[in-house]
């Protein structure tokens, strides 16, 4: 057999292979990872604005409410820390309660650190999370598809099809869903993701809803529950590709050690500042199965960061009370972006996180963590 012959390679060929292998520049991996972070938001946004080909439908569904938001949430990952946080602007709707008082962000985080350190670590085969997701709908995809079809019907306009930009909605409407995931701890075990979209839209305000009605109450979202089982190992934290379900609980449990490790993971990426990196990584880790010690240390590391503001007694999407921490940076669409999390200082739990453009009445994305914990069976809850 030919293939057999080629499988048996000689000692000399192995040497040649080794020589060749070492000609690959070592720095290549770092370059590509850096580019991945830098290009991700723009590449995804670009794709999602482009019509897809489908074997059945000429102009299939693109741009769902969550899509552009997903891109923007990713954009928030690469925002550069700008000026100081602006506590007065863009009050998060979830935090729009009158009895808000300013407090010391550091104190909130240190309290959370204390509480987190007192909890016990669990274990299991799957890490379960259930989240409530609200995404600002940017585009009416049906209307966009209709415009594309009209263009495509005219042979002369064919070129313009790829360039047609969706127009933003003149009102704030949100698609909501409950997303559950079971992440397998062991490589090779199947993981499961379930998304249950809400039947109804929600609106930023009564006026927004009225404008939507005046526009003919477009449906804006495609419903349909989806369940997917696969053995693909998901990225736990985009900024930290080396973290996995198997090593995330081995992160240092002391403040100095964790800070050192995070600095290592952050590396020498000059593109985004450490503080923005820390916020995004913090959100990723607080939703992941890190140990109570790491969780406590993480809050302490975050407490050292400057430029955060805090508000007490805010309510999250699910009505739970916590303290909001806010930081700001310059977004890549020219507008400043606010990044907000709500933590419960009593338990050290992350309750909710939000990304919002400065001055916008509604956040682009809001995720409330409903439940997390270990289970031993797919489909089971803690």
């Amino acid at each position, binding site marked *: 057999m*030919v*293939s057999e012959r*080629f499988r048996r*390679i000689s000692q*000399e*060929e192995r*040497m*040649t*292979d*080794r*020589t*060749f*292998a*070492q*000609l*690959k*520049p*070592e*720095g*290549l*991996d770092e*370059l*590509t*990872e850096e*580019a*991945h972070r830098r*290009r*991700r938001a*723009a*590449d*995804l946004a*670009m*794709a*999602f604005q*482009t*019509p*897809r*080909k*489908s*074997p059945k439908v000429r102009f*299939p*569904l*693109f741009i*769902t409410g*969550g*899509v552009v938001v*997903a891109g923007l949430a990713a954009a928030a990952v690469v925002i550069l820390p700008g000026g100081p946080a602006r506590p007065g602007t863009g009050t998060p709707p979830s935090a729009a309660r009158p009895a808000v008082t300013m407090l010391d962000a550091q104190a909130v985080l240190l309290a959370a650190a204390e509480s987190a350190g007192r909890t016990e670590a669990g274990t299991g085969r799957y890490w379960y999370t259930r989240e409530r997701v609200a995404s600002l709908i940017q585009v009416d995809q049906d209307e966009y598809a209709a415009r594309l079809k009209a263009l495509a019907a005219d042979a002369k306009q064919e070129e313009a099809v790829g360039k047609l930009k969706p127009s933003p909605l003149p009102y704030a409407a949100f698609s909501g869903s409950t997303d559950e995931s079971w992440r397998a701890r062991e490589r090779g075990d199947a993981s499961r*993701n379930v*998304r249950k979209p809400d039947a109804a839209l929600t609106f930023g305000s009564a006026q927004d809803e009225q404008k939507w009605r005046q526009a003919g109450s477009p449906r804006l979202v495609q419903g*349909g529950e*989806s*369940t*997917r089982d*696969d053995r*693909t190992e*998901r*990225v736990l934290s*985009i900024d930290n*590709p080396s973290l996995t379900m198997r090593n995330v609980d081995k992160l240092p449990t002391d403040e100095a050690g964790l800070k050192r490790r995070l600095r290592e993971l952050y590396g020498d990426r000059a593109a985004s500042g450490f503080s923005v990196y820390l916020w995004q990584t913090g959100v990723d880790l607080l939703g992941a199965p890190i140990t109570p010690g790491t969780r406590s240390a993480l809050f302490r590391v975050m407490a050292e960061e400057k430029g955060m503001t805090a508000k007490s007694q805010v309510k999250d999407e699910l009505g739970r009370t916590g303290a909001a921490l806010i930081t700001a940076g310059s977004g890549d669409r020219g507008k400043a972006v606010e990044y907000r999390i709500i933590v419960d200082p009593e338990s050290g739990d992350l309750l909710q996180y939000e990304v919002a453009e400065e001055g916008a009445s509604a956040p682009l994305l809001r995720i409330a963590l409903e439940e997390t914990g270990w289970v031993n069976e797919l489909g089971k809850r803690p």
Partner: protein
Amino acid sequence: MNDPEERFTDLYDRHYVAVLGFALLRADHSLSEDVCSETFLVAWRRLADLPEPELPWLLGVARNLLAKQRDSRVRRQALVDRITALSTERDHVAWDVAEHVVDRDTALAALATLSEQDVEAMALATWHGLPPEQAAAVMGCSTRTYNVRLHRARKRLGQALRAEASKSAGQRARAGAARQRFVEEA
């Protein structure tokens, strides 16, 4: 993960590094990133038709996009230039530690004598870690043809390395003899 956006994001996150790494060894930084973006845009448009596994298909698209850029002769030189440009002190140190029979630049010179297809066959196997059937898909040939190319590439690179090694040994010997003469004459 039934919705296309999520599937695409997952595809992008899983393969971006591999696709860009592939492009970076064939084109400069900004062109590589553009080719990479374009490759994923093609993947998005054809999301419903993507074959499994996806990586060879993605690399094949990137390869076609890159092929439009320059002719083969320029691309072959480009690979060696790209490796040189991307090499750092660390690569030289690692090379010296590994005690190869020739120095790194000499090995690159040997690589430059190979045909583009030969280098590519080896790169897909050694650098990108693709099994023959996937590498064949990237190069757009049969697995059998790919195996033949890989075998030939190994042989040719081995020969080129040997030739370079004896050449540099000869140069060292000549230089040594010249030095010796100089000492004697002095």
